[in-house]
């Protein structure tokens, strides 16, 4: 039997507001436990929520960026359940009427055609606190710093057909929310989390199979591995004559497997109802248009521009627009470098990303700034240095030895373009290598390279290669 995989993702993005979604407490990460939880976050008797407008603006921004409908009227609802890290005994979320409805996103898996994935909805909600099971000798600690942190939960249609597509979609959303500056995308700190709904069905069948919901997928790698594991598990169950049950499963990255957390029968009845403490959220046309005006150039638009205006190849443009920081870096470097976007692209994608990868650094942490790289490329363009010498200059800049001009000056790396000086060196080399000269003139053309090498060695690579070639041709003839 040939199976089709059906995947839908629920992505929780933590919105980059300064304060919480319903209180004035700070959302900064890493503070001492319970120091960033005010009376409202603690759910004290009598407190009331007040909606953070910045969180609303960010949600609207996301909606507009994926071509969705930003609802003129959405409603906050209470999701009721008991847990120690949920202070009020309910989470304020949006249920029937979310702030963002319908949208889509183009994804591309390497070597496959691009596909559109539908976005069902995105809704605003508050995060819960954290239960800390270690360090408390059999008890559980509760840290409510995270309680009330604004989240935008982005729910996709079940339209992805492989773990690779799921990862491509997740990466695209990850990039987009950072482009929009609504989420810092930090997966270690939990700012960007993902649950996956996975099912399989015989190829060609319309009806969806029974799904399981995978939790705890906090890296791109885990998403791919968890889905692949789950798909295999479901195929084994069905082909072994069993039935997949609807349940929530937890991914264990150490064992690389998913295991059952709770079944449908054990599922909570959340008793959703509209939160009477909050008025319906009403956004008029003027507001939505004002938000639309603040949208930055989005990844797909940027990619198209890099191709059409800067002459980059599809692949290059794709790599360089994968994150806003990288695209910004590239654009600044290319502008400072002068006209040669293609060369800048090669340098950013080659030497720069290589060096960053090697040291596990983000583009924002690069010791060579975009301005520095651009200025160095400019020195290639104006023939101050050769491309080969530039690699040496780049390494020096990486190691903190100053900008390109300083390195060139300090190390005397300026290219020799004085033809008189080069001719003098050529003459000397010809005189010192009579045997090779004779062989070359006898027709052993391959020896031309030998002479180039000699000249470059004598000038420590600083001679202009084109000039060296031309002069050698002349002299050796």
């Amino acid at each position, binding site marked *: 039997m040939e199976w089709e995989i059906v995947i839908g993702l629920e992505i929780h993005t933590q919105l980059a507001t300064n304060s919480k979604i319903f209180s004035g407490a700070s959302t900064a990460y890493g503070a001492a436990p319970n120091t960033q939880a005010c009376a409202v976050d603690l759910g004290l008797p009598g407190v009331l929520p007040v909606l953070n407008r910045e969180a609303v603006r960010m949600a609207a921004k996301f909606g507009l960026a994926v071509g969705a409908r930003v609802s003129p009227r959405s409603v906050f609802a209470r999701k*009721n359940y*008991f847990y120690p890290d949920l202070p009020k005994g309910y989470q304020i979320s949006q249920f029937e009427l979310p702030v963002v409805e319908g949208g889509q996103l183009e994804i591309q898996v390497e070597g496959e055609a691009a596909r559109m994935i539908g976005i069902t909805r995105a809704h605003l909600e508050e995060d819960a606190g954290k239960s800390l099971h270690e360090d408390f000798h059999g008890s559980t600690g509760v840290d409510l710093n995270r309680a009330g942190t604004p989240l935008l939960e982005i729910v996709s249609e079940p339209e992805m057909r492989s773990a690779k597509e799921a990862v491509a979609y997740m990466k695209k959303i990850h990039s987009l929310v950072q482009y929009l500056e609504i989420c810092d995308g930090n997966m270690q700190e939990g700012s960007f989390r993902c649950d996956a709904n996975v099912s399989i069905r015989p190829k060609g069948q319309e009806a969806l199979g029974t799904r399981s919901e995978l939790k705890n997928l906090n890296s791109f790698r885990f998403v791919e591995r968890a889905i692949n594991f789950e798909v295999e598990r479901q195929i084994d169950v069905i082909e072994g004559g069993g039935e997949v049950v609807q349940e929530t499963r937890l991914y264990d990255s150490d064992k690389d497997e998913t295991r059952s957390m709770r079944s449908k029968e054990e599922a909570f009845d959340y008793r959703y109802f509209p939160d009477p403490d909050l008025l319906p959220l009403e956004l008029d046309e003027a507001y939505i248009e004002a938000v639309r005006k603040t949208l930055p150039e989005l990844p797909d638009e940027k990619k198209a521009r890099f191709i059409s205006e800067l002459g980059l190849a599809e692949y290059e443009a794709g790599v360089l627009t994968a994150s806003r920081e990288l695209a910004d870096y590239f654009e600044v470097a290319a502008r400072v470098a002068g006209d040669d976007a293609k060369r800048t692209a090669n340098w950013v994608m080659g030497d720069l990303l290589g060096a960053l990868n090697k040291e596990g650094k983000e583009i924002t942490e690069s010791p060579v700034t975009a301005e520095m790289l651009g200025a160095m490329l400019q020195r290639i363009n104006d023939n101050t240095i050769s491309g080969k010498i530039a690699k040496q200059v780049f390494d020096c800049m990486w190691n903190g030895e100053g900008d390109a001009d300083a390195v060139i000056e300090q190390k005397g790396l300026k290219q020799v373009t004085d033809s008189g000086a080069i001719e003098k060196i050529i003459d000397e080399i010809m005189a010192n290598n009579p045997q090779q000269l004779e062989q070359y003139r006898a027709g052993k053309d391959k020896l031309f390279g030998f002479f180039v090498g000699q000249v470059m060695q004598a000038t420590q690579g600083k001679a202009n290669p084109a000039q060296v070639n031309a002069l050698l041709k002349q002299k050796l003839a």
Partner: protein
Amino acid sequence: MHTKTITQLSAALRSGEVSSVELTSLFLDRIKRHNPALNCFITVTEAEALKAAAAADRRLKAGDVAPLTGVPIAHKDIFCTQGVKTTCASKMLDNFIAPYESTCTAKFAEAGAVMLGKTNMDEFAMGSSNETSYYGAVKNPWDLARVPGGSSGGSVSAVAARLAPAATGTDTGGSIRQPAALCGLTGLKPTYGRVSRFGMIAFASSLDQAGPITYSAEDAALLMNVMAGFDEHDSTSVEREVPDYTAGLDNGIEGLRIGLPKEYFDEGLDDSVARVIDAAVKQYEALGAVVREISLPNTGLAVPTYYVVAPAECSSNLSRFDGVRFGYRCDDPQDLFDLYTRSRGEGFGAEVKRRIMIGAYVLSAGYYDAYYLQAQKIRRLISDDFRAAFESVDVIMGPTSPSTAFRLGEKSDDPVTMYLSDIYTIAVNMAGLPAASIPAGFVDGLPVGLQLIGNYFEESHLLNVAHKYQQATDWHLQMPKEF
């Protein structure tokens, strides 16, 4: 001095006839003497009160005065008061010292009013007789064998017995008006959103509203001047200018169009109460008002609808009382489930548990549409009834309660009969309208309240209409003899 209205006390304080410390001491003494019989206070804040009174006296000397500066007042124990035990009359919060101040009580403190203490109430404001309090029933000063009404029973008992010249209350389905009626006081439930709910422990968020309990409409206006107003901490409070509620008190009411809903005068109403209400209406006619019968056809649906909506909201609002962060926690919990079930099982009283269970039921999957959603639709119909009525009348009048104060224990075993005692007040909360209860006479020595219902944000007009009646009558100045 203890029989004076706020208006009179305010003048006496300003003229120097009495100091706030003297006045405060007087009421503290009266509380000491009479509270054991009435049980109207849960907490008396004697030291804090005397300190606040001394501060008020300094303000009075300096001429930095507001009308309530130096005036003692009691607050229902539903308002969080920083550093002071705030219990909502529940075992659940018997150990709870509020770490912050409610907007409403903060405004009184700013105005220089002196808090005498926190008054008893039905547990979490759920009740109509003040018999559900963890701290025991409150007695009606007019007859100690009878209930004062609820849920603001402690506040009305204290004011009626002159243990405080005024008090705050809250009204979710009649909890200011019904006890005010049963104890012969003036009580006002403002328009929903007029007074901040921040720091007021929620029962049913879409219905709860704080208001004044006083002798007279004039006093209520003074309290409203302090309480009313938008609060950025309460998203449901309304951003709308606050009038001077005392300004229009003396306006004439000639030509006032009074509507009497025929549904409020049907067989459920005690005949003797009906006669008192008729007489009050006649008095208004004598003052120049025009009376006509109107219909609020969905009146009969108000109580059943309320007992879906209010429990639904309370079941969620009271989830935070889980024994984890504050309040009552059971001894020696075995695990998380045990901690939750025993803390809540032991910490809440029977009526609270009954409403939480009703609420959880009507919100649960499969029942939500049939109960909660249906109730919301009826709620709109009830509002529409009032909207239509106010197209032809200015004020709606009728009884506040179908009978006078009943005996302690009389209805406590029969929740439905108890729930029906709020039959005339509940619809007003469902619609979010302002309404007052004012003393209109007596039956067998027990007070009867006349209910006045106004259009949205017409508290000024309601107080004006009440004040004109109180100018012509003296029911509001009657006092229970033993106090």
